[in-house]
């Protein structure tokens, strides 16, 4: 009896002790810890911490996971070589930096973001990588308030927001991609010598990601291009039979469809439309998220001849030296080649230098770009040439709409090939 009571008492004391330790630890220990930073005094900066928030799970995780792995691959390379060594122009001494990072999952939701932000900010990150639209939307004001640099993988930022100085966008926004699809549809319709206006339907999964291309601006742009919006069909966020949607579209006389889709959804659409034999009647314009190998792997031959708007060169573009080196890195790091792997490698590599530099400058470590870039080239085995993609743009007060480049791509024989010239995206700024 006594022993039992003892055990109980000890158990409870242990439990409460644990709770108390947690609370105290949270109060005291988690306060912003002094970091190793030494302002340009010539001592090694040591470690650069990168905080990452992205959809490791959720409807878009199939994109986000390979993207984030590609983004950190160049940092891994730098670490393996013992860190980034550069000459500080102020002191004239050599500095050495290594990188660490931590990933947090916001599950494609806004809700978990503030807690993730506060948790990772205690580690004093030099900059953030935000891989999910939701996280960028949720944290944009925080980055601005705390003056923290953020590299954003997606999104609709330039439409949703007045400019944000501390956020760098990497890819065309979804509405821009929608506008590019509309532009291509209008040109394709004209080149085939058909009369009247082409009818375009929105067609994607009924989740915010899927519907993101459809905005008021894009629909106004479609009107100005002479493309009629014939309706919108959103299928449920689960694997479904799409016979009804395609038949309804056929009945409505739709010529083109567009919408945001992950490789998985694109594969489902391609399979269904091929099965129904409507491939030529209704042209599905895939989004840049699905012009890639995972889609081909999931859909197989069903994709043959389908088009889409791409924003990075095809994987096996042997003429592009940048792509060749990226291929090598992807192979070494066992990366799944996603739709924006090249862009993410660029963002972690050559463009990453700009980010590191910009972030360091904001911390009071002025360095010239050349020093850093030289250091990077010594570290990494690859150089970067001119590439019309993955250009990091800050949003200034006059140019808050990043002008990216896109290209029409096509699936031919289980490969993605360019089917046109790179073009600058249409400017949809309301006049």
């Amino acid at each position, binding site marked *: *009896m006594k022993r039992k009571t003892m055990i*109980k008492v000890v158990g*409870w004391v242990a439990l409460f002790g644990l*709770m108390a330790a*947690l*609370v105290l630890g*949270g*109060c*005291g220990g*988690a*306060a*912003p810890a002094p970091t190793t930073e030494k302002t340009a005094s010539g001592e090694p900066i040591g470690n650069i911490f990168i905080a990452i928030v992205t959809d*490791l*799970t*959720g409807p878009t*995780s199939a994109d986000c*996971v390979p993207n*984030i*792995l590609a983004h950190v691959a160049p940092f891994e390379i730098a670490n393996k070589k013992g860190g980034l060594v550069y000459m500080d122009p102020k002191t004239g001494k050599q500095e050495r930096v290594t990188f660490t990072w*931590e*990933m*947090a*999952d916001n*599950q*494609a*939701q*806004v*809700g978990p*973001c*503030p*807690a993730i932000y*506060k*948790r990772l*900010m*205690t580690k004093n990150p030099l900059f953030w990588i935000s891989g999910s639209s*939701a996280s960028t*939307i*949720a944290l944009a*004001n925080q980055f601005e308030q705390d003056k923290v640099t953020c590299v954003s993988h997606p999104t*609709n930022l330039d439409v*949703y927001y007045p400019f944000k100085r501390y956020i760098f966008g990497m890819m065309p926004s979804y509405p821009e991609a929608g506008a590019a699809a509309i532009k291509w549809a209008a040109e394709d319709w004209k080149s085939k010598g058909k009369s009247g206006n082409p009818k375009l339907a929105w067609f994607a999964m*009924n*989740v*915010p*990601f899927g*519907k*993101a291309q*459809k905005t008021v601006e894009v629909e106004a742009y479609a009107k100005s291009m002479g493309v009629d919006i014939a309706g919108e069909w*959103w299928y449920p966020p689960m694997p479904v039979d799409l016979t009804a949607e395609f038949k309804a579209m056929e009945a409505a006389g739709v010529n083109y469809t567009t919408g945001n889709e992950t490789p998985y959804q694109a594969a489902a659409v391609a399979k269904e439309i091929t099965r129904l034999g409507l491939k030529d009647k209704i042209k599905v314009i895939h989004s840049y998220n699905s012009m890639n190998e995972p889609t081909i792997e999931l859909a197989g031959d069903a994709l043959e001849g389908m088009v889409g708007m791409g924003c990075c060169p095809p994987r096996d573009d042997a003429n592009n030296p940048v792509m060749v080196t990226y291929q090598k890195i992807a192979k070494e790091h066992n990366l799944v080649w996603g739709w924006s792997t090249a862009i993410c490698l660029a963002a972690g590599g050559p463009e990453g230098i700009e980010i590191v530099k910009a972030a360091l400058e904001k911390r009071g470590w002025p360095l010239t770009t050349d020093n850093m870039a030289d250091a990077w080239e010594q570290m990494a085995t690859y150089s970067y040439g001119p590439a019309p993609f993955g250009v990091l743009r800050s949003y200034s007060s006059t140019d808050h709409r990043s002008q990216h480049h896109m290209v029409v791509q096509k699936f031919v024989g289980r490969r993605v090939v360019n089917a046109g010239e790179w073009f600058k995206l249409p400017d949809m700024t309301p006049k």
Partner: protein
Amino acid sequence: MLPCGTRSFSYEEDVVVVRTRAQWGLLIAFLVFLFTLPLYGSYYVLTLLNMMAITLIAVQGLNLLTGYCGQISVGQAAFVGVGAYISAIATTRFGLPWLAALICSGVGAGVLGIIFGLPALRIKGFYLAMATLAAQFVLCWCFLNLETWTGGTEGIHVDDPSIGGMVFSSEQSQYYLIMVITLVMMFFAKNITRTKVGRAFVAIRDNDLAANVMGVNLLFYKLLAFFLCCSFAGIAGSLLTHYLGVVSPEQFTLEDSVLYLGMLVVGGLGSTMGAVFGVIMVKILNEFAIILAPILGAVFPWAGPVTTHAVPLLVYSVIIIVFLIFEPRGLNHRWSIFKSSYRLYPFAY
């Protein structure tokens, strides 16, 4: 069980919540701790507590419906969303002050809850669970697709809450705001359960036909339970949207709804303190899981970074199942055992 030497000489004495000096002392110490925390607590702790408090309001509402009235709801998160959207629309579109928007979202979500609670008059058990599940899916669909009102994929950006000229923008000021409202709501919930209404709820939970025979108006009390549950959710939603500064359609998932039920189970259904225990326990475990997950991801390269989602899920499910099997009455039961044995010490009974 009351502390030794405490006796009631009148009804008023019997119904008082805080009875002894020791309890008063503890309560005051707790309140002092709670309201001085921003002075020495880190941002991280404040954020955690803010999210906990908001969740607690929603879970407490669910406790009134599921724990006290016995009507299961698998759609609480959607009603939190309704509150969030009503508050966002009221402040941005109609320019209402924040406090008015808070009340609007409480009432609005409650009224919507009544509509989805209507089938509860005829159905119960699994059918009711599915009806509330339908509410979850239909409402979330509406958040995304009623673009003219909800802003569609973009959601709605809202300003910081303000009362009169006072703007609550910093983490600390939001903390005070949220804590005060949470305490008021907890006190409100505690008192509802001790009145006629609460007793009617318990009667319905134990056997609704018997309750009906005894003169409990089933129609009124079941709908009242739904109204209360959903207005708690609405208020939580209003606080949440102004705390985050944005409301977006993918925020209110079925996972959250189930997690609210799980928190209730962990804490103990049908007790006000149970909800508090459950929320604190699950949220702290969640933080542990989030810290643990990347380490596991590094240890098991096959799973990789996706462990950050899988590990919390696993932790939730295991703890819910363990509590259901080994301690269905939840942490609150353990707490009351501890209290009574402490009061009886050194005697066994």
